């Protein structure tokens, strides 16, 4: 666990290129209702042959933002069918890998999740999956650029012991990565040792904190 103080305040913006700015505005502003909150119109400059571009931002709640770059005159950088505006993948890349990178946007309750489901289902980008995971439930679609977008709600509040468990997992992972041939089985064996070593003291410390309140 880290002793460093934690000063950051969430996502300022996550930025992606687009070759379909009209579709992007329709999807985020007109279908999802995410307000446009900032944009930059810039003349290309600098040592590279940089095109003129628009950098535009949508509010995704909590004052966090998703942003796009549209470069005038730039053609798509690949012609592969699988992938998104940023990168294409050939048949040698497994589907689970292609689908691994995504942005998940948080909602607090089921009513909100279902409202976004309704908005998407009424649009050209209907929900492709609704999945109950371990502790969250999510809807998914691809935006007009092929980026996988998830909207997710918690099924219950996060418990303090999940932070302990996550830290034991990461410490066990680092330990097995230091040896050849890391596997989930080796991780679970190492994690069992860490649980025996650390879990009782964690619970005692936590009980002490509760009593001190």
């Amino acid at each position, binding site marked *: 666990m880290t002793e460093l103080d934690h000063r950051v305040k969430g996502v300022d913006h996550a930025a992606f290129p687009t070759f379909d700015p009209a579709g992007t505005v329709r999807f985020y502003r007109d279908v999802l209702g995410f307000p446009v909150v900032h944009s930059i119109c810039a003349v290309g400059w600098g040592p590279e042959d940089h095109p003129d571009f628009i950098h535009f931002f949508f509010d995704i709640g909590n004052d966090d933002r998703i942003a796009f770059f549209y470069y005038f005159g730039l053609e798509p950088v690949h012609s592969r069918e699988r992938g998104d505006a940023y990168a294409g993948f050939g048949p040698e890349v497994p589907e689970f890998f292609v689908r691994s990178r995504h942005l998940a946007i948080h909602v607090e309750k089921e009513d909100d999740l279902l409202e976004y489901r309704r908005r998407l289902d009424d649009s050209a980008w209907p929900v492709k999956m609704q*999945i*109950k*995971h*371990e*502790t969250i439930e999510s809807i998914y679609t691809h935006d007009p650029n092929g980026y996988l977008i998830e909207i997710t709600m918690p099924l*219950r509040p996060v*418990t*303090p*012991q*999940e932070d*302990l*468990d996550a830290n*034991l*997992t990461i410490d066990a992972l680092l330990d097995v990565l230091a040896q050849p041939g890391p596997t989930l*089985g080796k991780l*679970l*064996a190492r*994690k*069992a*040792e*860490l*649980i*025996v070593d*650390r*879990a*009782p*003291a*964690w*619970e005692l410390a936590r009980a002490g904190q509760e009593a001190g309140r």
Partner: protein
Amino acid sequence: MTSMYVLDVPENTPLAKVAAEDPAVTVGRIGPYFEITSDAAIVIDRRATGCRHAVWYSAISGIARDSRITQHDKNALRVEPA
């Protein structure tokens, strides 16, 4: 001895409860974890737990070095002495 560890969170409690129905199995605690032990195999029927797949396949926190998973599929979890 067979030992496995499961974090005590709401979606995992049915798993510990079903494990405890076997009289040969002991369900104790170590910190915020269930410590599930037996002198023989620990066998847990997934359908009896009611756990959906996402929970079922991620519920194990640790398996002691003297134990090993011999089955973990949609039907059951089986942990045996290594």
